[in-house]
């Protein structure tokens, strides 16, 4: 009874904390100064049509680097926790996938990979980018895992691709420090004409690297969770 009372008290306190947010804050009608600068100067300085991408990759590039490190640490933690096999040695007999799933996935997997690559290479022009494209690549890998229950992804290969793309991300950041204004500054390449695929400096390259890295990390997490014999 006392527990239930304390829980209710906590919930009521939290709701009371939220009250000023709803009652007092009136909807803003103009941007604050930082956002104003990003929105007006972003297209001219960086040449990116999608300003969310400009904020993620260049203006707040260091944040994104930190988030990718957090993702990497979480993947490492999952691998660390699942490293020791339990007592059970023999894998449970697995049901093989059905004919419809196998045929359908053979048709869909190349299209999904193509779509993922499209999303992360066009991140500076259309909605989308490295994170979304990486997840679409992961969903292609997931379809492959579902249709071929026996097949395994090469663990070394995914880890090597992920590490190499992480190193390239840092190298591009340092190139920006040397050749342009600061760490992860994307302007050391030509800005080009807005709306073209090869424009906006190094933003498409950085976002493609992020996409490959995120995709490989998530494939690694799924593969570790899927293994039956561990």
């Amino acid at each position: 009874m006392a527990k239930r009372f304390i829980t209710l008290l906590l919930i009521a306190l939290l709701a009371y904390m939220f009250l000023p947010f709803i009652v007092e804050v009136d909807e803003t009608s103009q941007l604050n100064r930082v956002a104003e600068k990003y929105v007006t100067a972003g297209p001219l300085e960086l040449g990116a049509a999608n300003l969310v991408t400009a904020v993620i990759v260049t203006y707040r590039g260091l944040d994104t680097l930190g988030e990718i490190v957090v993702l990497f640490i979480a993947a490492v933690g999952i691998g660390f926790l699942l490293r020791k096999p339990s007592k059970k040695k023999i894998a449970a007999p697995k049901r093989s996938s059905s004919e419809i799933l196998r045929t359908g996935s053979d048709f869909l997997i190349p299209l999904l990979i193509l779509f993922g690559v499209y999303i992360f290479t066009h991140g500076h022009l259309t909605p989308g980018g490295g994170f979304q494209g990486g997840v679409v690549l992961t969903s292609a890998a997931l379809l492959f895992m579902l249709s071929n229950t026996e097949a395994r992804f090469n663990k070394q290969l995914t880890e090597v691709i992920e590490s190499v793309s992480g190193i390239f991300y840092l190298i591009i950041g340092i190139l920006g420090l040397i050749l342009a204004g600061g760490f992860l500054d994307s302007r050391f390449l030509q800005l080009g004409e807005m709306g073209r695929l090869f424009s906006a400096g190094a933003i498409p390259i950085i976002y493609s690297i992020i996409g490959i890295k995120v995709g490989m990390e998530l494939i690694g997490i799924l593969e570790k969770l899927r293994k039956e014999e561990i």
Partner: protein
Amino acid sequence: MSLIIIIFLGIIMIAAAVLALYLKNLVAAIISAGVISLLASVLYLFLAAPDVAMTEAAIGSGLTTIVFLLAFNKIRSDRED
């Protein structure tokens, strides 16, 4: 018009959240939690954030549900022996 759609989606989301916490069947609860994310991705379109909508639809409702189901499958196969 959009206000009616938002309120309708919000009622479904709150119902799905309560169901996700109180359903006895864990698989049904996990799917119900995925429905919340899927409807949230529609709301992001009303908030003029298509990038976030794409991410939420792919990750929140797709991969998170799959990760929950894979972990639940691991627990169930442990329980059987």
